[in-house]
């Protein structure tokens, strides 16, 4: 039962992480639900004595990235690369976001997924760069580069309200 108990104890933080990634209440809980089901199926892969939170966060972000890519392939969302270009070039989008400068969710939604993930892991969840890189399965340098671009875009969009 320890596994289930630990999972339940982790749920509030996992829901916050999912909320940060998806930006939507229901989508976040869908993601958490899928992550819990995946974790229960794959529980043998979790090694007792290692951190359950990192493992669960990794499962959650992998599911989220997979879904995001699948949606992008179906054309219902912009691709990761497209949205990165959009952030760089689309000043109209920035201005629009700036009008709603109090809206953190709206600003977060304009970030490419990988940047949003880095921002949530470090600035919201409080993970160190190394821990966040481990969860995102990227080198620390990649993580900090995504984090830097993400927070720069947020600072611009949220402006003085930040």
């Amino acid at each position: 039962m320890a596994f289930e108990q630990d999972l339940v104890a982790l749920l509030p933080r996992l829901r916050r992480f999912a909320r940060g990634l998806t930006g939507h209440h229901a989508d976040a809980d869908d993601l958490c639900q899928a992550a819990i089901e995946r974790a229960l199926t794959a529980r043998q892969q979790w090694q007792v004595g290692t951190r359950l939170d990192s493992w669960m966060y990794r499962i959650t972000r992998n599911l989220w990235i997979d879904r995001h890519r699948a949606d992008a392939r179906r054309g219902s969302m912009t691709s990761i690369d497209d949205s990165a270009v959009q952030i760089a070039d689309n000043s109209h989008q920035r201005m629009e976001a700036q009008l709603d400068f109090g809206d953190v969710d709206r600003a977060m939604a304009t970030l490419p997924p990988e940047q949003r993930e880095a921002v949530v892991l470090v600035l919201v969840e409080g993970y160190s760069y190394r821990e966040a890189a481990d969860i995102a399965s990227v080198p620390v340098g990649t993580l900090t580069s995504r984090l830097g671009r993400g927070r720069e875009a947020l600072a611009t969009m949220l402006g003085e309200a930040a």
Partner: protein
Amino acid sequence: MTFDYDIIMAYVDGELDLVTAKRVERAALKDNALAAMIAEQRALKAKLAAHFYPVLDEALPARLMRPLEKIDTRLASPARSFRWSTVTAMAASLAIGLLVGPQFFSPSSGPLTVRSDTLVADGTLANALDTQLASAQPENAKIRIGLTFQDKAGAVCRSFDSAAIAGVACRQENDWIIQRAMAGSPRPAYRQAAADSLMDDIEAMMAGDIVDAATERVWRDNNWAARGAVHN
């Protein structure tokens, strides 16, 4: 002296070694632009943390508990199979609630509980002591973590304060044993007074120094395990 953007971000995130962090701090005293950049990034971080923090206090939806309950049921009686309906969802969440402890289902559960005749932190207080870093807590955190230190027996201890209660708890196995407790206050000014009055107790308990942000993070990652007795 000028610093790369990356260094400034790492400073704000508590990722720099102490020497470099001190250099940034000293430079910021003389360099208004640098100080403004640091302030802006700190404000951004606080804004994001404050925006998402309330999620932690939300009641957990039954549908997230159901998969956990399914497993438990199957393990208990493998021959039976359940088809869960919306109507049974609430029953399932109640059942798992009894199984894992009511604190996960009642947002109003108290910060303390008595276990084996010992007063231990529970609910949101236990969660704050487990996860919250003094160096990275939201402005509007309901429970604020003060100092983290090691007592003379080597246990990790943390001071805390909130509207309801202030005190010091030390880690023992997976619990936070309450060592000192006093009534908190909804007024921040009084809370500071409570924290100050705990300082004498903390100084008497403490071995070594109050830890810095980096050490606090490492200790959290090690699940606040005892550090071995300190002699000083």
